[in-house]
C-alpha cells in the first residue's frame, strides 16, 4: 500500500507552476509535490532524482518539450499533460486516451483527474504505454504550427553577415559545388548575391515548384523574374531576366517546360 504519493510539476511559467501546486494541495492533500521544473530538461532531471508517481507536464516548454520529457519518463510514472487552449492538442490527447488538463485549470476537471490517478495508483495498474502515442501527438501538434508554404524565408550568408531573404525576392539559384548561390533583390531593388550551405537538390525540395522551376542541372529560376526566353539552336534556350544582365541556360532536358503556348 503506497504511503504517500509524490509528483513533479513542469511549466515554463512560474505562476502557473505554483498555482497548480496549490490547487493539488487543496484537492489531494496526501500528494507531495517534490519538485517544480521550469523546462523539459529540468523535469527529466527531477524525475530521475525523485522518481515520483505522477508527472504534470506542460506541453509547450523551451528546449526539451513536455512530450520529449514524457518520452524519457516512459512507463515509469503517470503522466498528465497540461496545455493552454489548443483544439488540436485536445483532439490528439482525447484520441490517444491521454490524461490532460487545459489551462486555466478548472477545479472540477482537476478533481476528476485526481480521482482517476488515485484509482490507478491504488490498483497499481501499469501506466499507458506512451511511446507510440507520443509520436502521433507530436505530429499533430507540429501540423498546427506549420506556416503557409507560399511566403517563406531563406537563411543565407552575405559576406560575413547572416540575412533572411524573402523567397519572392530571389531571382534565381545556381549551384556551386556543395553550396548554392542565390541571386536576389535587396530592399532597394538592387541585385545582390548570397550563399547558402545547402546543395541545390536539397533547396529545391523546399520551394514552391510552380514558382521556382529547375531549368538546368545547376540552375533554378523564379518564373516571376523571367523577362523572356530565346530559343537557340541545338534544342537549347536562354532565359533573360528582368533587371539583371545575366542570361541563364536552359538545357535540353528542361526545354519542354517552356513549350506551353
Amino acid at each position: 500500500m503506497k504511503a504517500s504519493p509524490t509528483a513533479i510539476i513542469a511549466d515554463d511559467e512560474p505562476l502557473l507552476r505554483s498555482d497548480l501546486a496549490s490547487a493539488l494541495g487543496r484537492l489531494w492533500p496526501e500528494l507531495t509535490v517534490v519538485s517544480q521544473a521550469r523546462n523539459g530538461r529540468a523535469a527529466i532531471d527531477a524525475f530521475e532524482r525523485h522518481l515520483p508517481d505522477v508527472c504534470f507536464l506542460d506541453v509547450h516548454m523551451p528546449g526539451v518539450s513536455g512530450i520529449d520529457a514524457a518520452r524519457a519518463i516512459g512507463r515509469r510514472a503517470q503522466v498528465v499533460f497540461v496545455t493552454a487552449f489548443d483544439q488540436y492538442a485536445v483532439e490528439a490527447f482525447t484520441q490517444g486516451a491521454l490524461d490532460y488538463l487545459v489551462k486555466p485549470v478548472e477545479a472540477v476537471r482537476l478533481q476528476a483527474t485526481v480521482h482517476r490517478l488515485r484509482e490507478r495508483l491504488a490498483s497499481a495498474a501499469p501506466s499507458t504505454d506512451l511511446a507510440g502515442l507520443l509520436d502521433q501527438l507530436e505530429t499533430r501538434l507540429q501540423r498546427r504550427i506549420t506556416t503557409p508554404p507560399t511566403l517563406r524565408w531563406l537563411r543565407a550568408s552575405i559576406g560575413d553577415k547572416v540575412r533572411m531573404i524573402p523567397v519572392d525576392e530571389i531571382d534565381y539559384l545556381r549551384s556551386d559545388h556543395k553550396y548554392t548561390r542565390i541571386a536576389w533583390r535587396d530592399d532597394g531593388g538592387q541585385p545582390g548575391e548570397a550563399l547558402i550551405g545547402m546543395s541545390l537538390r536539397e533547396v529545391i525540395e523546399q520551394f514552391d515548384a510552380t514558382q521556382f522551376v529547375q531549368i538546368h542541372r545547376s540552375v533554378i529560376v523564379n518564373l516571376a523574374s523571367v523577362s523572356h526566353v530565346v530559343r537557340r539552336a541545338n534544342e537549347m534556350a536562354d532565359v533573360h531576366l528582368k533587371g539583371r544582365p545575366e542570361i541563364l541556360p536552359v538545357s535540353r532536358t528542361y526545354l519542354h517546360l517552356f513549350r506551353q503556348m
Partner: protein
Amino acid sequence: MYIDSTRHTDADPKPRTHSGRWSTAAALGIGWGLLMSIGSGTPTYSWVLRTVLVVGLATLAFGVAERWPPTLPRWMARWVIQLLAVVLAIPVAAFFGYSLTTSWPFWAQSQRLQGFGIVTFLAILVGPWIALGSMVRQREALARHQALAFDLERSELERQALDARMRLLQAQVQPHFLFNTLANVRALVNSGSPTAPVLLDSLIAYLRAAVPRLGEPATTIGQEVRLVEAYLEIMQMRMPDRLRYTIAVQPDAMHQRCPPMTLLSLVENAVRHGIDPSEEGGRIDLKIGIDNGHCRIVVADTGIGLRLGKGDGVVGTGLATLRERLRLTFGGRAALRLMADESGGARAEVDPPLDSTAAGSVA
C-alpha cells in the same frame, strides 16, 4: 508561356480571327457576285469567280499586312499599311478575275473594261471601310480583354488585402495567448498577490489596443507602442526569469502612421521564435527613430537567433502576413529585413516612409 523574341515585336498582339474573317469574305464575295450577275449577260459563275477573287485577295492582303513586315518605323502605323495593301490588291485581283473569265486581252472589249472599272471602283470604295471596321472591332476586343485583365488584377489585390485583414483579425484574438494570460491572472488572484490587478490592467490595455484595429487601415506609432508595451508587460509577468526588454522611441516618431499590428507582429515574433524557445530567455530591444525621410523601426532580441537546428535553409517565420501587409500599404518602399544580430539573436528592421500628412509633429 513561351515567347519567341525573334518574331514579331508589335506592341499589341492581334487576336487571330481567321475562321470568322474568311467566312465573312466568302459570303461577301459570293453575294456581290450574285448581285452583279443580275441582268448581266455574263454567266453567274464568272461574276462570282471575279468577285470572290477580289474579296479573297483583298482579305489575304489585309491579313498579310497584319504581320508583315514585322517591324515598322515608328512614324508608320500598321493600319495604314493594311489599308494600302487592300487598295493595291483590289485592281490586281480584278485584273486576274477578268483575265480568267474572259478572252484575253479583256480590256480590248469596252464592256469588259467597263465592268473591270466598276468592280475595281466599287471594291475600292467599300473595301477600306470594311477593313477599318474589322480593325476597330479588333481593337475593341483587345481593349475589352485588357480591361478585364485589369479588373481581375484589381479584384485579386482586393482579395489579398481582405485576406491579410482576416488573418490580422485571427492574430489579434489568439485564444492561446488569451487563456494562458488569464491562467496567470487567476493564479495571482488565487494566491492573493497584489500584482493580480497589475496583470489584469495590462491585459485590458492590450485588448483595448488590439481589438479596435478591426476596422482601421492604419494607426500611429504611438498607439502601436502602447500595444507592444502592454504585451511585453504581460509576457514579462508570465516569464519573469526569461524576459527583459527596453523600448526607446524618438518623440517625433509617435505621430507617424503605420499599418496596424506592425510593431506587435515584430515583437511577438521575437518573443515566440527568439526568447521563448530559449531555456535562459533573453532581452528584446525596440528602437524607433526618424532618419532621412523614413521611420526606422528595429526589434532586436538576444534569443536563439535564426537557428533552424540544421544550419542554413528555408525557414517559415511568423512574419509572413506582415510582409504582405507592408507590401499592400507601401508597395516596395518599406521592406522587412530579418538578419542575425551580433548578440547571436535576431534583428528585424522596417523602414516605412514618413507620412507627410501626419497630424501634429512633436508630442
